[in-house]
């Protein structure tokens, strides 16, 4: 349990895929025009990443080093395609209408291949799945935050509910590409500022203890 929490902290804060590793920027910037879209994309990646890490960890001993990249890509692409088909069969009229466009993009999301290469190919299935889950969670939280800020400033709503009064000027640019870059940059700076300060605080606390 303790290691699970450590894993979570690792994925959400220390190695956050969006704000620290800066991976998967294409879907991050393209999808986050609303909080719901960010959440949906994040959750899709969370599911795919958990499953792909698990699968790749299971086959890691069979796959020789030389062909690991093509083998991983085939496995990930197959997984995503199957998930896409299942989503269409079950939710074509609801969820798929908004997420359908992004599911195929997950194949080329470098977080998935990055985690397969850096973690899943070197660790056991359980650890790999937990790692995938926490990285996916970090990605989901980052995308939802990004989407929420852009939606609030761009359309005056949050998760579809009107928050800002109509008189409040809406910054349409927030919904377009430049707004995505601005908000991402600002959130990234904030995130790392707080993270660094926390790190320093805990360092100071530790060295303080030693002095006593």
């Amino acid at each position, binding site marked *: 349990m303790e290691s699970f929490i450590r894993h979570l902290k690792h994925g959400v804060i220390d190695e956050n895929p969006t704000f620290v590793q800066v991976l998967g920027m294409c879907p991050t910037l393209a999808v986050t025009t609303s909080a719901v879209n960010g959440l949906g994309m994040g959750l899709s990646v969370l599911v795919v990443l958990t499953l792909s890490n698990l699968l790749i960890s299971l086959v890691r001993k069979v796959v020789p080093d030389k062909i690991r990249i093509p083998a991983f890509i085939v496995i990930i692409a*197959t997984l995503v395609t199957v998930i896409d088909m299942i989503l269409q069969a079950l939710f074509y009229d609801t969820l798929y209408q908004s997420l359908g466009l992004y599911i195929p993009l997950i194949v080329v999301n470098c977080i998935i291949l990055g985690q397969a290469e850096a973690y899943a190919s070197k660790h056991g299935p359980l650890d790999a799945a937990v790692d995938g889950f926490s990285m996916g969670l970090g990605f989901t939280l980052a995308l939802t935050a990004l989407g929420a800020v852009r939606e609030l400033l761009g359309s005056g709503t949050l998760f579809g509910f009107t928050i800002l009064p109509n008189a409040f000027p809406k910054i349409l640019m927030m919904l377009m590409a430049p707004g995505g870059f601005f908000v991402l940059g600002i959130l990234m700076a904030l995130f790392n500022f707080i993270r660094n300060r926390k790190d320093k605080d805990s360092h100071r606390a530790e060295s303080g203890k030693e002095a006593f």
Partner: protein
Amino acid sequence: MSESKALLKEDSVLRPALILFAICSIAGLILGLAHMVTQKPIESKIDSVNKAALEEVLPEGTDGLKEIEVADGANDGQPILIDQVFQAKGGWAVKVTGKGYASDPIELAVGIDDQGTVTGLSVIRSSESPGLGSHASDPSFRQQYVGKSADQDLVVTKTGASADNEIDAITAATRTTNGVTAAVNRVFAYYRQYLKEGQ
């Protein structure tokens, strides 16, 4: 015998190639199976989405709904005028595609009653930018088309619709609005030429 064993040795080129071949074969098999299982449900889902769109735009529901042939020659010129025509009690539903901002076209269903008045517009499928062009699916935008007469082509305005045949553009999504409006105008042209009484 000894030769084939040599091929499968640890450092042989063939070994990784064969393993990759095996992985790809299994992946292909899984994909084929998944396709077989999901094909029918996906088709029926798409059908029900289309049917719901027709139901929504037709004046008196889908009673006696039947597809009628697109008139000969209607689709000869570019761009393709319309995709499908359905006839039901009291009017028609026409499926048509418009070119918006995204590379994928916007699929629409437009309902027209036998007086030539638009009874509904439904967006069946669109890949327009979320938060911008995706507002084309909002009822407040689609409602603008309802009640318009097919006798007159619609025009898009950015300064607030004042005339009968004007449509307010969606903010920051002029091309989406233009695409939808042009598609509706093509339905109008088809109606005037082929569906209107006495034609």
